[in-house]
């Protein structure tokens, strides 16, 4: 999983049942200091996240298929949690 910030929405007509009833959100991976940590990806939202939320994203196929209950889902990225807090060690 990685930390990411929800930065936007993607609207696309449903053409695979795995996407039915779920929002597609654009998320940008971030490090704990909020620095961007890679290119933005499109993730299926499972937790009703919104733009601006810091979220946990799973990025692996078989977990994504399990989460969406779709054994043949063509996807890897799923938002699985809204982050309340990241507690960092004190240096």
């Amino acid at each position: 999983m990685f930390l990411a910030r929800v930065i936007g929405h993607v609207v696309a007509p449903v053409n695979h049942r795995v996407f039915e009833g779920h929002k597609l959100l654009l998320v940008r991976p971030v490090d704990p200091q909020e620095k961007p940590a890679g290119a933005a990806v499109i993730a299926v939202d499972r937790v009703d996240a919104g733009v601006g939320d810091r979220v946990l994203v799973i990025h692996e196929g078989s977990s994504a298929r399990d989460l969406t209950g779709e054994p043949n889902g063509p996807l890897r990225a799923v938002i699985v949690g809204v982050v309340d807090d990241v507690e960092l060690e004190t240096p």
Partner: protein
Amino acid sequence: MFLGRVIGRVVCTRKAEGLEGVALQIVQRLDEAMHDLGTPFVACDTAQSGLGDVVFLEDGREGCYALPVFLVPVDAVILGHVEEVTVPDRGIAWREAR
């Protein structure tokens, strides 16, 4: 998954088994600002895309789940056609021209 724009198409008569009837498109990946990202690549198309269309894709093995035959030697698949992209913080509200 990520955004891309169809910039061309590839025609191949002789393809690996399982790819019969699957269209191949040349895709430029886009970032959230709809700017080009990286080098264009070839993807299988499950969304009847046309030149200039903005699409979303999955790469790796997962994309193949959308194809008629799963175990095919393919690493990028167009899953759908995108109508709108909104990124409020960057003032982006892209909408497909109709």
